[in-house]
């Protein structure tokens, strides 16, 4: 084992130049980027488990009350839901284009595509608010004011409870995503993001794609139950 001096001293950073973006505890940008990417993937795994609890509850209750779920599902606005799906998928496209542009160091394109992604994300949230308002007006929000066809009254409440928690949690993630995009926009604007240091955009892209994928599961499970069958 190597001998150690009785007294240790701090090693200065002054004798080699390193990129401004490199944090001091990393050896080089490569290690830093790999760490950030791995970190985001681990975080997304936690998110899968997070939403997973809700998908589990949903699966169980849908298996128990298929008819109530189908009837309740038909009360959701499929046009708005489908539009939102298209909006979100397009935003993933613009996000991927932003990542690509960042990797090529094309600042202008990065800004445009980030802005488009944010506009589409905001549109999603806007459409979602319209849907929520509709549900509120129709007394489909579970709780003391809930009103529904007497036959399915009880179990439809469970459907709507899950609907609101699942889409609400998803919307919260979208809002956080918009915050991250704003941050990335600022960094792209002020030159922090360069061709050498495009990793933050990549990592933000991973997050955005994940939020999109969650919606791609939510949409059919919530909006498309038994749509071809008339109850």
């Amino acid at each position, binding site marked *: 084992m190597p001998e150690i001096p*009785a*007294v240790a001293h701090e090693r200065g950073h002054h004798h080699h130049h390193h990129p401004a973006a490199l944090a*001091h505890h990393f050896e080089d940008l490569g290690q830093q980027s790999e760490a950030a990417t791995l970190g985001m993937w681990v975080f997304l*795994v936690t998110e899968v488990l997070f939403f997973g609890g809700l998908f589990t509850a949903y699966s169980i209750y849908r298996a*128990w009350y298929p008819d109530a779920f189908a009837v309740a599902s038909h009360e959701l606005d499929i046009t708005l839901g489908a539009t939102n799906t298209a909006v979100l998928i397009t935003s993933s496209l613009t996000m991927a284009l932003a990542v690509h542009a960042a990797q090529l160091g094309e600042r202008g394109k990065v800004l445009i595509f980030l802005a488009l992604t944010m506009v589409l994300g905001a549109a999603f949230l806007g459409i979602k608010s319209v849907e929520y308002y509709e549900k509120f007006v129709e007394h489909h929000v579970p709780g003391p004011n809930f009103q529904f066809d007497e036959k399915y009254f009880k179990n439809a409440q469970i459907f709507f409870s899950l609907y609101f928690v699942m889409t609400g*949690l998803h919307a919260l993630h979208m809002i956080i995503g918009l915050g991250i995009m704003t941050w990335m926009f600022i960094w792209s604007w002020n030159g922090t993001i360069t061709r050498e240091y495009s990793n933050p955009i990549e990592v933000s892209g991973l997050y955005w794609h994940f939020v999109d994928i969650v919606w791609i599961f939510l949409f059919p499970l919530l909006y498309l139950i038994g749509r071809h069958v008339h109850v």
Partner: protein
Amino acid sequence: MPSRTALLPPHHYLNDGYGITSWLLTRDHKRIALLYLAGVTFFFFVGGAFAVLIRLELATPAGDLVNDETYNKLFTMHGVMMVFFFLIPAIPSVLGNFLIPIMIGAKDLAFPKLNLASWYIYVIGSLFTLYAIVSGGLDTGWTFYTPFSTIASTSNVIPAALGIFITGFSSILTGLNFIVTIHRMRAPGLTWFRLPLFIWSHYATSLIMVLGTPVIAITIIMVAADRLFHFGIFDPAVGGDPVLFQHLFWFYSHPAVYIMILPAMGVISELVAAFCRKQVFGYTFVAFASLGIAVLGFLVWGHHMFVAGQSVYAALVFSILSFLVAIPSAVKVFNWTATMYKGSIAWETPMLYAIGFIGLFTIGGLTGLFLAAVGLDVHVTDTYFIVAHFHYIMVGGTIMAYLGGLHYWWPKISGRLYNERMAKVSAVIIFIGFNLTFFPQFLLGYLGMPRRYHAYPPEFQVLNVLSSAGASILGVGYLIPMVYLMWSLRYGKLAGSNPWGAVGLEWNTTSPPPTANFAETPIVTWAAYEYPTTVEGHVA
């Protein structure tokens, strides 16, 4: 061994900046570890105070010290404080945070700012929970089963649940940080199978933190939605299933107990190796046993629900898996014992704690077999047998390992030695107090005393009195280390870089270490616990 010429290094992490902001805005994993140390110690004593009141009440059969509502709040808050604010964070966030970068030859964790954020999240979560305590308390039990927690309880469920929810993110982010650090920041030459077993255990623990904690987080959201907005996800009146809550809750909370024990096992591996001056016997098996426990730990949650109305088939599946998860733990106990064979064994305080751990964990773990046997679990579940079982593991196991680790690495953390005689005496007092408190509870449970009972039939009194007597001894035992450890910070002998003559990267740097941990990044060419075999067997 303590060097007669030990000096404090002129620059180390403790004097690298003074003032409150240098601590509250630090990114140094070592300082963050000490911030956590302050937090977990505080919550340990808060939870301990509740325990004292519980045991005082239970010394007599009648509910005469406090009324039943208060008692229900006491055991609830004891559980919440101890589980979420002490046992889950203690070893990982104090010892893990301090040691993981050093043990792998890194300058810090992968995400130092996230590490600091994790501490703030822990503190904010704890403030919500403390608010819940002081503004009336929580009475749902730490397990907050529905529909009692969603419909019937009139206590501060929402603030407490929110507090636990928030603190859960501290756990998730810590686990995430550890995983990325261990994957990406090992020093050159430090391959996976050269890592100390402390790292393997914390890696396995981090997998659980990252995969399990989100499930309880979402479960808490559903409980809050039910309670605040009357959603009905767990309400039988609209077709919701209260037992679904139990599945979701225990899906996290069983792996959570492995979050509490795996780091402790990692500490024990280090202590046994150091105080026998020998490689841990069966290193590879111990490393894989940690991973095995983490994986199997996710498959056994239903053993908390054998009488909850599951199907017989489900119960049998969970039973057989629960037996399987015992085996890697047994393998570790055998390996530690085998390590002692032909070791060079020193009876210093950390080793006393390690030996205490092995004995008490063995007993506690074997009582787990009683519970995995379904036919027997029916009788003892929800009785004091369960209380005794988990306290043997969590207190006789985890807390002893935590104290052992704290004593072992105290010289590294503080640069000082504590009073060895007082430390040994405390360890013995704790051991005696612990057994006197919890052993009678096995008997109480088999005789039929249910848990969470404020008053009980008189025939259970004798055993309860023994248990309460033990608790008072245990309480004293826990207070003494506070005294001599604090005292050592100012007046303790200087330790030098390697007071124990152990091997490990942490002993290759000064005590206390510099902020960047090492003067130069080490390059590792040796196996873990490889004690040099020079002619005299001399240790550097």
